[in-house]
């Protein structure tokens, strides 16, 4: 769909380059991911497009929330795009992924369109969960949400990994959680079982330095989240560099697929927004800090600069992509704000799976509603 109008032909661009990436800190590992990453032009443009789409989608969600078109909870992902993009670049669509409530980015990378995501946020029938789930409850094949209770998704992820092992399908499960969730007991139960049974589970802690309003130092006795799995090997990764994330995830996936059991990755990342749209995000951190990350470590800027400096793409090309993404997000917004709400007949559906239709009590004994699977 992209019509790249550039003054130079593609032959002028470097098709592939190798970049130095930060070495990962290792825990119980003899060697880690490579310190050099190869990037083709196509890959670079694709990662750029993915991250920029997530960025613009999240900023649009911010706007819609302030207009009260999105309601309830809304936890935005801007700043952390390299994590979602890098992970997806290293796994297969047939692999599995589960995360917590800061899930819009992963919903996109796992294959749901911006249109369906925004329409879910605005609570319309065209939303990926038909408007019934909202921000924290979006699902897709091999993507298990979107979970509202902090940490609860981690045992679920270990369970999915168990299913992969059981079925012998060589798939892995990427199980994400944040620095706040890292202190939940249920994680340690999952670590134990995953290690005991050598489950193909990649536990990934997205450490964005704050669990809502509580900085990591105030919440954790040890902030070395990649070591918290104790007997499970771990990697600490620069989560603002999409190539670093990709290489680390590739390494982790190889580790799991080789039958070596689970592995933990800590992605050091940052969120520009507060915890959610009801948190301005400046009572527990300074605006200077946010600004510094934006100017020095923005994942999208970093990738763009790398590609430009190695002559892998042109400034115009990136502009074209930006324009196209803006258009795509605008169209999705149009849909999300004009699509009708779900019909009332939907209210009671989807209680049970593969069940004959049943009667559901409404607000009074005379209100008998219908539920189909």
């Amino acid at each position, binding site marked *: 769909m992209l019509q790249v109008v550039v003054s130079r032909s593609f032959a002028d661009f470097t098709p592939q380059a190798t970049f130095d990436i930060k070495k990962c800190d290792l825990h119980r590992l003899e060697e880690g991911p490579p310190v050099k990453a190869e990037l083709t032009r196509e890959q670079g443009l694709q990662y750029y497009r993915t991250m920029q789409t997530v960025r613009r989608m999240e900023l649009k969600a911010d706007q819609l929330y302030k207009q009260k078109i999105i309601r309830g909870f809304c936890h935005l992902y801007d700043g952390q795009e390299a994590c979602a993009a890098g992970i997806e670049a290293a796994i297969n669509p047939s692999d599995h992924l589960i995360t917590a409530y800061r899930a819009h980015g992963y919903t996109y990378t796992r294959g749901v369109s911006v249109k369906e995501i925004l329409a879910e946020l605005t609570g319309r029938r065209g939303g990926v969960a038909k408007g019934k789930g*909202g921000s*924290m409850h979006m699902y897709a094949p091999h993507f298990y949400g979107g979970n509202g209770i902090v940490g609860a998704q981690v045992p679920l992820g270990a369970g999915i990994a168990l299913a992969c092992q059981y079925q012998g399908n060589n798939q892995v499960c990427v199980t994400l959680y944040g620095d706040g969730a890292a*202190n939940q007991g249920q994680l340690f139960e999952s670590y134990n079982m995953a290690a005991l049974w050598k489950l193909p589970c990649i536990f990934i802690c997205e450490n964005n330095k704050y669990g809502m309003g509580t900085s990591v130092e105030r919440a954790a006795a040890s902030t070395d989240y990649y070591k918290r799995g104790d007997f499970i090997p771990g990697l600490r990764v620069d989560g603002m560099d999409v190539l670093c994330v990709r290489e680390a995830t590739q390494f982790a996936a190889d580790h799991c697929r080789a039958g070596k059991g689970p592995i933990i990755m800590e992605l050091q990342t940052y969120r520009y927004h507060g915890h959610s749209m009801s948190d301005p995000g400046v009572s527990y951190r300074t605006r200077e800090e946010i600004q510094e990350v934006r100017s020095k470590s923005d994942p999208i800027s970093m990738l763009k600069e790398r590609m430009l400096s190695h002559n892998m793409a042109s400034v115009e090309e990136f502009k074209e992509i930006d324009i196209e993404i803006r258009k795509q997000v605008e169209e999705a917004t149009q849909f999300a704000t004009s699509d009708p709400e779900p019909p009332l007949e939907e*209210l*009671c559906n989807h209680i049970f799976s593969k069940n004959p239709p049943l009667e*559901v009590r409404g607000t009074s004994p005379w209100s008998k509603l219908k539920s189909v699977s």
Partner: protein
Amino acid sequence: MAASLRCFLRSGKNTVSALQRRDFHRSAPAAVQMTVRDALNQAMDEELERDERVFLLGEEVAQYDGAYKVSRGLWKKYGDKRIIDTPISEINVLLQAGLRPICEFMTFNFSMQAIDQIINSAAKTYYMSAGLQSVPIVFRGPNGASAGVAAQHSQCFAAWYGHCPGLKVVSPWNSEDAKGLLKSAIRDENPVVVLENELLYGVPFEMSEEAQSKDFTIPIGKAKIERQGNSITLVAHSRYVGHCLDAAAVLAKEGIECEVINLRTIRPMDVETIETSVMKTNHLVTVEGGWPQFGIGAEICARIMEGPAFNYLDSPVTRVTGVDIPMPYAKILEDHSLPQVKDIIFSVKKTLNI
């Protein structure tokens, strides 16, 4: 004359001005408007001041001033020792020997992470130890539906906690309820679950002069009749008390006078107040936000049926409840998942066979 005398006696202080006010006495003593949030804040502030052993712990309660700002200003006033920010570890319910913790759950949905401790460690311990070990702990936080927070953040736990012997469970509606019940809960020697409501936090209510006092408490286990009436009894807790009063105002225009009972306490439930009312009105409608099966209304029905009021019923009790589904996100669906004032009006008329 009698009113001003009551005013004089109740206030204690300002006796001279009370007597002087006698000629101008038209309304109740100086009441102020206070939001539920501020009432809860005041309750905790007063109890923290009164008893050194009381302290507050929970996620974001200290430096963030509380996720819903209920504990605003308390950390500044009392410091790290008395107001403690915890990591996200709900299950760390501390049996702090000799202390009196207030544990805030950011919402009661997260209390499920700790529910084993609440039931097995808090509720049952005094019994299991035959009186050796008491558990003077308060669990508080928002309960039930909010607005647009979807399935995992909208559940009502009144029936869940109300089921368990060893626990006391209260559910305040207005600011006076909030302050009085929370203070009683903190002073109680037993584990008390305080089910607040996020949508009510910002709502201002009148606080009588009595309620403004530092020793104002509301007894746990006593319901309050918010509105007198003869046609039918409405029983509700928390937000739905307001809905019932709204419905009553509409029905009054048609000559139907509802008696509205604010349960205030879920466990131990004040069945006597309900029975007395039913024996007067002969009709009963219960209203709750929670799911119907095994809920508050179901319990009220059972208790009425087992007691003297049964013979006074002219029609079966009607339960108005949330719809029996997980909470959907889309506004139109969410609005239809919970009792509306019109649902209460409809149910009243059906019950009265009008």
